């Protein structure tokens, strides 16, 4: 029976490592489980960190849990000897070793990842005009609301939140191969903007303004997910994100402009005071009202 238990514990590192490797290298049945293919340079860097730290973790898992299983195998009391257990209370050298080595690994990890974080969250892209550099203006203003996404494209003036903004709901079309900046605000509660393919996630907090930036290298149709609980309809708060070529993008924008009417935009803006504003401006869009059994919270 003792052998049985040691094998049980030995299985943990074996299965653990096997599944991590399967997910990492796309072997069935975990071939598609982990993350979809990265669409951007910054995403690749995150992937390297993600895979690297997981490999390291899998290695440490194997080492420690294997030792546990092995100890059970070797040191289980089988009642066939009178010998006592070893009387060891500590071993200073050993303990210093297993403190210092992990500490070094952790310090290395800490410094190693800073660059990627800065790239993704801190170094907002700039443009230089006449030797003066300034932040690159956002191409789209994202307004998150319960339970949908509003996108306001900067119109001809290249500035968001002006009269000539172009309004689209739950669909974001963007040119591939260009650095794009989005500005994000919330109309009501906290939401979060998650695009797994871009390795991009940012909470959108009412009362604050966030900026995100990315550069997708391929034309592809993907999805935006909301990853912060925002109420009963949280699960259906999705939008489509289409990366297209520059030419297609220009054509699409031109289309939107002609279809676009200021009245429509007005309708989407929250009207009147807080007391009368309806939370569900996009109720018709939700359609799937089967699920809404009268619970609004």
């Amino acid at each position: 029976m003792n052998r049985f238990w040691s094998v049980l514990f030995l299985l943990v590192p074996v299965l653990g490592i096997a599944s991590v490797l399967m997910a990492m290298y796309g072997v069935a049945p975990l071939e598609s489980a982990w993350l979809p293919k990265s669409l951007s340079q910054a995403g690749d860097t995150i992937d390297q960190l993600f895979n690297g730290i997981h490999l390291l973790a899998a290695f440490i898992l194997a080492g420690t849990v294997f030792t546990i299983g092995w100890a059970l195998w070797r040191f289980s009391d089988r009642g066939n000897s009178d010998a006592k257990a070893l009387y060891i209370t500590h071993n200073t050298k050993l303990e210093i070793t297993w403190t210092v080595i992990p500490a070094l690994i952790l310090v290395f990890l800490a410094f190693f990842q800073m660059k990627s974080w800065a790239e993704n969250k801190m170094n907002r892209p700039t443009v230089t005009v006449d030797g003066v550099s300034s932040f690159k203006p956002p191409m789209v203003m994202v307004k998150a609301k319960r339970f949908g996404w509003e996108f306001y494209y900067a119109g001809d003036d290249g500035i968001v939140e002006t009269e000539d903004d172009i309004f689209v709901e739950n669909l974001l079309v963007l040119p591939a191969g260009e650095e794009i900046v989005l500005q994000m605000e919330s109309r009501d509660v906290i939401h979060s903007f998650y695009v797994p393919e871009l390795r991009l996630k940012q909470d959108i907090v009412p009362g604050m303004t966030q900026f995100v930036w990315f550069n997708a290298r391929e034309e592809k149709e993907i999805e935006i997910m909301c990853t912060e609980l925002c109420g009963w309809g949280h699960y259906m708060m999705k939008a489509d994100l289409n990366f297209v070529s520059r030419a297609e993008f220009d054509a699409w924008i031109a289309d939107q402009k002609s279809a676009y009417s200021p009245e429509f935009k007005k309708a989407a803006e929250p009207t009147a005071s807080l007391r009368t504003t309806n939370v569900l401006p996009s109720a018709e869009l939700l359609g799937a009202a089967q699920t809404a059994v009268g619970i609004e919270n």
Partner: protein
Amino acid sequence: MAEASVENSIAPDRKGNAVSRFVWTYVFATDHKVIGLQFLFSSLIWFFVGGFLALAVRWQLAWPWSDMPIFGHMLFAESGGQMSPGFYNMLFTMHATIMIFFVIIPILAGAFGNYLIPLMVGAEDMAFPRLNMLSYWFMWPAFACIILSFFMPEYGASAGWTSYPPLSVFQGDAQSLWLLAMVFVGISSMMGSINYLTTIIQMRAPGMTMFRMPMTVWGMFITAIMQAFALPVLTAALLMQLSDRLLMTGFFLPENIAVNNGVATSGGGQVLLWQHLFWFYSHPAVYIMILPAMGMVSDIISCFSRKPLFGYRPMVYSITAIAGLGFIVWGHHMFISGMNHTLAMSFMVSTMLIALPSGIKVFNWIGTLWGGKLQLTTPMLFCVGFVSMFVIGGLSGIVMSAPPVDIVIHDTYYIVAHLHYVLFASSVLGVLGAIYFWFPKMFGRMMNERLGKIHFFLTFIFLNGTFFPMHFLSRMPRRVADPYIYEGLKDLLPLNQFMTICAIGMGLTQLIFVANFFGSMFFGAKAGRNPWNANTLEWTTASPPPHGNFDVQPIVRRGPYEYSHPDTECDFFPQTKTS
């Protein structure tokens, strides 16, 4: 329960008819052991309620919008038994709330803390027995609030256990009940903590120096300190949110937000303030939910390895370090929250640091096993299970503490995997091991070993089947009622069904435990004073111990881990034994 203890634990002036005796002994008890058992039983009952909620969550993820068995038809007759999305949000909110605040914290600090601290330090009771009673009775208003909230129109609080405003401020009345319940739980924990600290500092038996205390007591001691420092912050935050809800203040509400046909708000507040206050409590709280278990596991592993705990002092220092660092890492829950991105870097560094003492503990447990004479009893198996599962949970913690990586995995099922490895696969396994270990002391009878081992085996298999695959769902957001609405997640359905089946298996397995628990209480083999040949003080008195705990004042002569000492005949050396 053995007659002797009942007889002894009644104050003489309270001897009356049977009913009033029962009430004074078991209901308004001031004996720390009875209070410990009260906490134990109420936590175990809530454990099953929380488990049901979890299975309902898993049901929805495996077979979305299909008829929920049994409850579906009771609650959702008009939709043919299918749950609503709001109901789903209630399920995971209440599951987490109950498991954290009604199960793990009370069972560790309330049940084992109460039962074991006086026995292990050689005191006759807690320092403040009446405060102790009050600390249990303050759980009941919390229970009442939560039970009541299930009957509110939205079936319970549903803003997540983290309860982020503004969403939580605009929830229905169940949220107010939730906040009140948390305030009561906090008060209860606070009274407990004060008691534990005073007892440990003031009431140790002669010879019981701080560094002769078993790790269990150290775990409880450090936990009590953390509770005492962190709880006031949570309580303040809870009251602020309550006042935002009821008094129209705006601590957490900015200007110009539009929610739910607009409750008028004063605005001018900070949404992120709640998150800072909440996590300032709740990160220490996650350690509150594991340090006592770590202590108990250390004692159990040492006992069944028949070997001293490896590196006792470093073990003490590392839980102290965990507790200290635990107060400066809360920001790792907020990397993506929109707080200043530079701040993420400092929280990243402190979080990496806290992984270090956690690692040291694991290595020391392995060092304890190494070269021992291991007895693989049920409690030992649960504790070895604890250690190996904690390795997985700790490692996923390191993965997430890298902010660029956390961009991807924050608020996805990866987090759910992490927290269940540390809370279920570690803390709960540790608690179960502790129940098997101290059951003979509590009830004077042994639990059935064969059933115990089957219970361990099935729990271990099913928990890994349920939680391990979650590590691969870093593109599946958590708290989403129907993930398959996303094209990119449709292929995850079979994996989710597999996890649900394992979860149901895990739920059913716990029935073996229930049968073993109650069966052994009445029919188990009689346990003597010291069935495991352990060293600590509680094993020197009767099982169960009488009122006042010890027949003679224990005098402590050595540390708790003198197993297989070369100078002794037998392989254990009780702390009180004269050599």
